[in-house]
């Protein structure tokens, strides 16, 4: 249109050719988008209830759960001062951290045991450092008995003003606070939280002096400060602050302090073992790969990531078993379901409805009932063994073990998942006109040749759909393996359930779940590459 109106540069012509315009000169694409926007909005509104429901009840919780596989704020939140003090410590030299770390630990634990979160941290650390949880439990009980008066006494002896709330107010008002007094500031915060938990909201912390741990932290801060810095406090224009530090300057290096290291060593030997400190240091970042490492039977040691000892490896074996059993179950579903689906598709409508009801019958029964029925059938004193003994196929001593092992899981799960194979197969077979087979036979093909060359290839989309359904369902199956799997027939999902509800190691459960999810997605992707996902038909 624009090309015909005015003489335009070739550039404009070519552009107008590529973007067609409407009558009023708007680009056609934009007009179309505008015209469709209303409909799109309406469509979106129609699905929004489901969308919101899915996001709120499915996507967000699962996302949160998966995030737990790497989330690790607990160390940082419970031992903030210790984590900060440990930043100077090199875990590779196999030396214990210095006294300032122990002071920070005492301070952090004082608050943690007050709000009762130290055992939780102990359990978390115990996943990576077996035995450490008892160290934390013991310390929580002993922490109140720690001797923490030395630093305070020393400071007050030099400068009595340190025993007044005003001294602390002055300190908090200084420009150097909190940057120059990191340990003290952290300890002061801990103390305020402790005080609030201990005494409630009635007391005003500004009217009190903090407990001994905070004085110990102050001494550590001062001792780490260059002498010139303290000198600058003394000579500063802030006279209140100068007064506080005048008598301290020069005596800092010799100030006695509380010996928390020795006291902790007395509470539990664990505190003077470098590996415990290495574990704390390793787990102090807020994001961790430790759950994922544990999920694949590895751990991070001083030498880097290594495999766990043979007798502690369980998850890889469980993953392999889960995938292997799921494949076996999928294959047996194909073998058993294919003839049934064929029968269904080729019977008269009345008869096929009857068979379809039989296929769907298990859906009307509780999963637990079905699984329990298999227990009754398969157990050593059960129906099948009794029949075999009666028929003299086996003797009393040779009763088959078919339950509480892999066999039980395969049999019960094949039965439970069979309809998921039959239904897609059936709906695909239903669409295959009988004339295909007739055509093949009229051209000279024998029954089996006509089946394999003509009928079977046309059912492959159904096999694909059924296999994906059955495989994905079985890879995450939990109830049946739990009930009939014994020890050799349980799946990875049973382990996940164990960590969710018994060991409460949700991080590990989340990591295992994430790996399972990735496995399913990877298999799905592989299937798409090999067979093509368009080739999946549900009817």
């Amino acid at each position, binding site marked *: 249109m624009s090309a015909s109106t005015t003489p335009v540069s070739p550039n404009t012509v070519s552009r107008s050719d590529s973007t067609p315009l409407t009558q009023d000169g708007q680009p056609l694409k934009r007009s179309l988008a505008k015209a469709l926007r209303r409909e799109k909005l309406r469509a979106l509104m129609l699905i929004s209830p489901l969308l919101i429901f899915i996001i709120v009840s499915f996507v967000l919780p699962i996302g949160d759960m998966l995030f737990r596989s790497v989330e690790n704020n607990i160390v940082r939140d419970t031992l903030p001062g210790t984590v900060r003090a440990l930043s100077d410590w090199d875990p590779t030299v196999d030396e214990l951290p210095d006294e300032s770390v122990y002071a920070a630990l005492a301070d952090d634990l004082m608050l943690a045991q007050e709000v009762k979160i130290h055992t939780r941290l102990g359990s978390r650390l115990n996943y990576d450092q077996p035995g450490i949880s008892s160290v934390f439990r013991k310390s929580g009980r002993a922490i109140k008995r720690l001797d923490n008066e030395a630093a305070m006494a020393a400071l007050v002896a030099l400068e009595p003003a340190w025993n007044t709330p005003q001294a602390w107010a002055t300190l908090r008002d200084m420009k150097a606070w909190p940057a120059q007094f990191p340990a003290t500031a952290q300890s002061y915060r801990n103390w305020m939280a402790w005080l609030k938990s201990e005494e409630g909201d009635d007391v005003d912390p500004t009217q009190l002096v903090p407990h001994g741990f905070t004085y110990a932290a102050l001494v550590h801060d001062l001792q780490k400060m260059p002498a010139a810095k303290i000198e600058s406090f003394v000579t500063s224009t802030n006279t209140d602050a100068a007064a506080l530090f005048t008598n301290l300057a020069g005596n800092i290096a010799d100030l006695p302090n509380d010996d928390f290291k020795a006291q902790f060593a007395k509470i539990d030997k664990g505190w003077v073992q470098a590996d415990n400190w290495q574990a704390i240091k390793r787990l102090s970042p807020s994001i961790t790969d430790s759950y994922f490492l544990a999920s694949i039977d590895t751990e991070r040691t001083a030498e880097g990531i290594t495999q766990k000892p043979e007798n502690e490896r369980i998850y890889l074996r469980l993953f392999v078993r889960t995938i292997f059993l799921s494949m076996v179950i999928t294959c047996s579903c194909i073998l058993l379901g294919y003839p049934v689906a064929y029968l269904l598709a080729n019977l008269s409508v009345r008869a096929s409805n009857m068979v379809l009801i039989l296929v769907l019958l298990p859906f009307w029964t509780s999963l637990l009932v079905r699984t329990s029925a298999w227990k009754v059938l398969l157990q050593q004193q059960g129906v099948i063994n009794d029949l075999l003994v009666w028929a003299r196929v086996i003797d009393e001593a040779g009763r088959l073990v078919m339950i509480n092992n892999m066999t039980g899981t395969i049999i019960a799960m094949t039965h439970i998942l069979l309809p998921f194979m039959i239904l897609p197969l059936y709906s695909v077979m239903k669409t295959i006109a009988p004339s295909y087979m007739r055509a093949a036979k009229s051209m000279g093909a024998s029954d089996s040749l006509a089946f394999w060359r003509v009928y079977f*290839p046309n059912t492959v989309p159904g096999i694909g759909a059924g296999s994906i359904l059955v495989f994905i369902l079985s890879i995450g199956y939990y109830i049946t393996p739990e009930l009939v799997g014994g020890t050799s027939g349980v799946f990875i999902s049973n382990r996940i359930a164990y960590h969710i509800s018994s060991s409460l190691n949700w991080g590990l459960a989340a990591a295992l779940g994430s790996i399972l999810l990735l496995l399913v997605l990877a298999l799905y992707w592989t299937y798409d590459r090999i067979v093509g996902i368009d080739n999946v038909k549900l009817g």
Partner: protein
Amino acid sequence: MSATAKATVTTPVRGAAVRFDHVQKSYDGVTLVVKDLNLDIAPGEFVTMLGPSGSGKTTCLMMLAGFEPATHGEIYLNDKPINNVPPRKRGIGMVFQNYALFPHMSVAENLAFPLEIRKLGKSERDAKVKRALDMVELGAFGNRRPAQLSGGQQQRVAVARALVFDPDLVLMDEPLGALDKQLREQMQYEIKHIHESLGVSVVYVTHDQTEALTMSDRVAVFQDGVIQQLSPPDALYESPQNSFVAQFIGENNKLSGKVTSVNGDRCTITLDEGTVLQAEAVNIDGVGSRSTISLRPERIELEPALDRDNIVEGKVLEVLYLGDHLRIVMSVAGNNEFIVKVPNGGRLTTPVEGEVYKLGWSAVDAKALDPVT
């Protein structure tokens, strides 16, 4: 049989002879779908089984192909009984209603399938596939999947596949049913030409009379499991043997009455409202019996110039202009659906609705047949 004779002259006959000998078929053991079928098909003949749905024509085809066993009687292929021969050993090419092209194979693979089964070498196979595809003018489509072809193209592939292994007999089960009218007409000629050039026997099932009349050497009109008439197309139209055939093939006016006299192949019939008409006695029981006269609409003359055997008056109810002819609905002798077709000769004067006109026709065009209730 004249058409068959013509076919034998033009091409070497390689077609198979088929004979149905007292064949009966019942699915449920209560009703007979095919009642005592006797049919001879000569080598190279094109025979169409025509009839309404449920008349048993497809069942006959399926029995011939071997997909349905005959309940009674014997079918012979080239004088050999084939009741116990499985379909794959009958060597019959077949075109199915919805083509039954294998969707997972390309067109060429579809065509090569019967050749592979016959264990032909690859080069021979390719040559035959190419020849068959060229025959249906689809040489460039060998690599396509059936789903990528139009309905007409799929139909041609189905025909090519039925012929590629050189069968002596080809069965076609309503192969053009899914095509639109224009394509259907075109395919009718193509199938006819292929048949003529190859000389195979064809048994063709359809419910479309135009298809049957266009293509066949002989047409077997089926109703209720019985062949009502087996004739070349012209005989079927010109001299129907009974009222069903007369009605089923082409358009037809019915006038019912009683036979009042019979004179050789002529008879007089007195219609229920009194009019006496001269007709050709084709299928009547004798004087006093009831009969229905069948009369083609184009054989009736409006305001006849010559003296005709039958002259009646009719009132024009409706006039439809159809280009090449006028179609006039009239009320004649109590029949309000009496159709008259007047060819458009150029100087046509359109009859006026509501007016009464004289109509005339010869006695030979009025066939006295069995009564229709």
